[in-house]
């Protein structure tokens, strides 16, 4: 008849009356718990936070028993003769004593069970609160990182309009805009599988690579190869990234794009009539290995009045009030109705009206870029660079000339100086012309006229290589002087070879002649060009501010 109790500890508060002692003795005999802790009833009060299932045994119904209890899951044992109406005012359970063994065990069990359930519920609730707090903190952290990662995003470029609406806190869509140093503009629209935090994390490496490569003006094809490589290594197999990447040339006339798994971008004219649908020709990023990946880019011509609409499938698969998809046709129709750059807000309003109160099922992104000249070209370096005057001098003997790529080496040093960096291409050209003259004509005895046809051209450079390898004597000296006050560079190159007579500059009638152009460039780009020592020494100046 007696079940061994599952309950480990039960606390009993008792008032030390003979009634209480007999009740406690009986409860002990019934082994209601493995351990019974006895407490004085004087220590009990209604706000007690209980550690174990609790029984209160009292010979009389005291007024403090009638107050609201912090924990109602406790059992009060009173003499059977206590006023029943009064004892019902106790917020917990009441057991009139004496009571049958069965009823006693049942009531104790019931009390213990509800107490334990309550305890568990409290514990779960507490851990949920902690969990929620932790998630919120982590979301804040991630949001902060995203904000910083995308702080360079040039979405306020004056010729682009965007609508970016995530379905949850984090956006699995990505719309990135960045200017290139040539005045060109890059726009990337990407859609990771799924939405929420998981896909958004893929946005970090993608955006970092995008901005870094845009700064270097890397081509679209090379960009997507790098993106694919990164995402392929990073993303789990069931995750990938549809992506549309475009580059608009500085004059707005040439648009190169790569579309991997995105809906067709729409190129439309002033009247809203769609001229091109730039459909996906490739798999999404992160699917194919480096070897299988196809970075083939397509190019279209655009006019200043053209615009291109990029969007994720969230737009065309948006559900209406009647749970119907928007679809491509309806989107094209909307664009045709609102083609102007000032119509974008109306277009957004139409889309919102269509959706009504229907919740978003996917992230939704739409960007419309006007294909006009970007007006973004920027100077490479500021002019206000502090500089020191210097002289650089080197003399190269036959062995040096055989082994060193001289002009590249000199520019490798000088081109790093802030004052010269923005002019390195021109300085390279000027130095290359006079150095090659000294080497090819002075030391190697080559004749430029050989270069007049393509075969001769290649043969000339083959001879140059052969003769250079066989060169045993002779040297070339280079001197570069920089006057920082005049912002002026003076370069002299001399050789120990044979005298040489410079050609006449080529005339416009010989425009397409493939040689003799070097002198022409020297005369036009350099200042105060002087030949001395029978053509063995040449010197010229170059104004750094003249660009």
């Amino acid at each position, binding site marked *: 008849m007696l079940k061994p109790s599952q309950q480990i500890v039960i606390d009993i508060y008792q008032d030390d009356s003979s009634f209480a002692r007999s009740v406690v003795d009986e409860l002990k005999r019934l082994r209601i718990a493995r351990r019974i802790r006895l407490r004085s009833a004087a220590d009990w009060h209604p706000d007690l936070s209980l550690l174990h299932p609790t029984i209160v045994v009292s010979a009389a119904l005291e007024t403090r028993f009638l107050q609201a209890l912090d924990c109602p899951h406790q059992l009060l044992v009173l003499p059977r003769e206590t006023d029943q109406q009064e004892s019902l005012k106790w917020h917990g359970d009441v057991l009139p004593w004496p009571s049958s063994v069965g009823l006693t065990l049942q009531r104790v069990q019931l009390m213990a069970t509800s107490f334990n359930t309550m305890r568990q519920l409290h514990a779960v609730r507490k851990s949920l609160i902690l969990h929620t707090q932790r998630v919120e903190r982590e979301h804040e952290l991630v949001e902060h990182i995203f904000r910083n990662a995308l702080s360079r995003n040039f979405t306020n470029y004056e010729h682009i309009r965007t609508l970016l609406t995530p379905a949850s806190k984090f956006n699995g869509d990505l719309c990135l805009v960045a200017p*290139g140093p040539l005045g060109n503009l890059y726009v990337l629209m990407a859609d990771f599988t799924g939405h929420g935090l998981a896909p958004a994390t893929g946005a970090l490496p993608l955006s970092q690579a995008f901005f870094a490569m845009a700064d270097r*003006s890397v081509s679209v094809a090379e960009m997507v190869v790098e993106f694919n490589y990164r995402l392929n290594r990073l993303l789990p197999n069931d995750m990938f990234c549809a992506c549309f990447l475009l580059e608009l040339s500085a004059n707005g006339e*040439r648009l190169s794009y790569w579309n991997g798994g995105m809906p067709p971008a729409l190129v439309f004219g002033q009247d809203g009539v769609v001229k091109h649908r730039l459909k996906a020709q490739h798999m999404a990023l992160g699917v194919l290995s480096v070897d299988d990946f196809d970075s*083939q880019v397509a190019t279209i011509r655009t006019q200043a009045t053209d615009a291109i609409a990029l969007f994720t499938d969230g737009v065309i698969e948006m559900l209406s009030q009647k749970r119907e998809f928007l679809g491509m046709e309806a989107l094209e129709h909307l664009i045709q109705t609102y083609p102007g750059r000032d119509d974008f807000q109306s277009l957004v309003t139409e889309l919102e009206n269509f959706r009504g109160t229907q919740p978003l099922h996917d992230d939704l992104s739409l960007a419309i870029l006007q294909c006009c000249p970007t007006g973004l070209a920027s100077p490479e370096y500021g002019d206000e660079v502090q500089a020191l005057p210097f002289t650089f001098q080197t003399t190269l003997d036959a062995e040096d000339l055989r082994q060193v790529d001289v002009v*590249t080496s000199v520019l490798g040093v000088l081109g790093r100086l802030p004052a010269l960096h923005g002019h390195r291409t021109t300085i390279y050209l000027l130095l290359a012309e006079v150095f090659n003259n000294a080497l090819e004509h002075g030391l190697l005895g080559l004749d430029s006229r050989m270069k007049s046809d*393509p075969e001769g051209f290649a043969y000339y450079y083959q001879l140059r290589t052969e003769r250079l390898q066989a060169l045993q004597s002779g040297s070339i000296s280079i001197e570069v002087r920089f006057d920082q006050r005049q912002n002026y560079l003076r370069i002299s190159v001399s050789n120990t070879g044979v005298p040489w007579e410079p050609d006449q500059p080529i005339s416009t009638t010989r425009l397409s002649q*493939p040689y003799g152009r*070097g002198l022409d460039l020297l005369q036009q780009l350099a200042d105060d060009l002087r030949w001395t020592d029978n053509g063995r020494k040449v010197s010229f100046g170059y104004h750094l501010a003249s660009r």
Partner: protein
Amino acid sequence: MSITRHVSNDGKELTIAVHGKFDFGLVHEFRRAYSSIGDEKPTIYIDLRETEYLDSSALGMLLNMRKAVSDNVKGIHIINSRPEVKTILDISRFDKLFTIE
């Protein structure tokens, strides 16, 4: 990888990009890049965005290319030149021989 070459899917565009230094060191590689251009009469784009250095031999190579392919292409465009490179092309009056963007 100083020269990269891309042909569009329809064969109508051939893009040749020159990276770093453009001079006679690339004479064979550059010729190879335009040696097979297909029958589509493509437009050739010479992409100079990553061309940091060039000299007159590069200009000679461009002219040789023009001579070799001009009957079989729709046009030759030189694109994405940095301002300094653009100045050099302008001085050489390449705008009369190529489309410079």
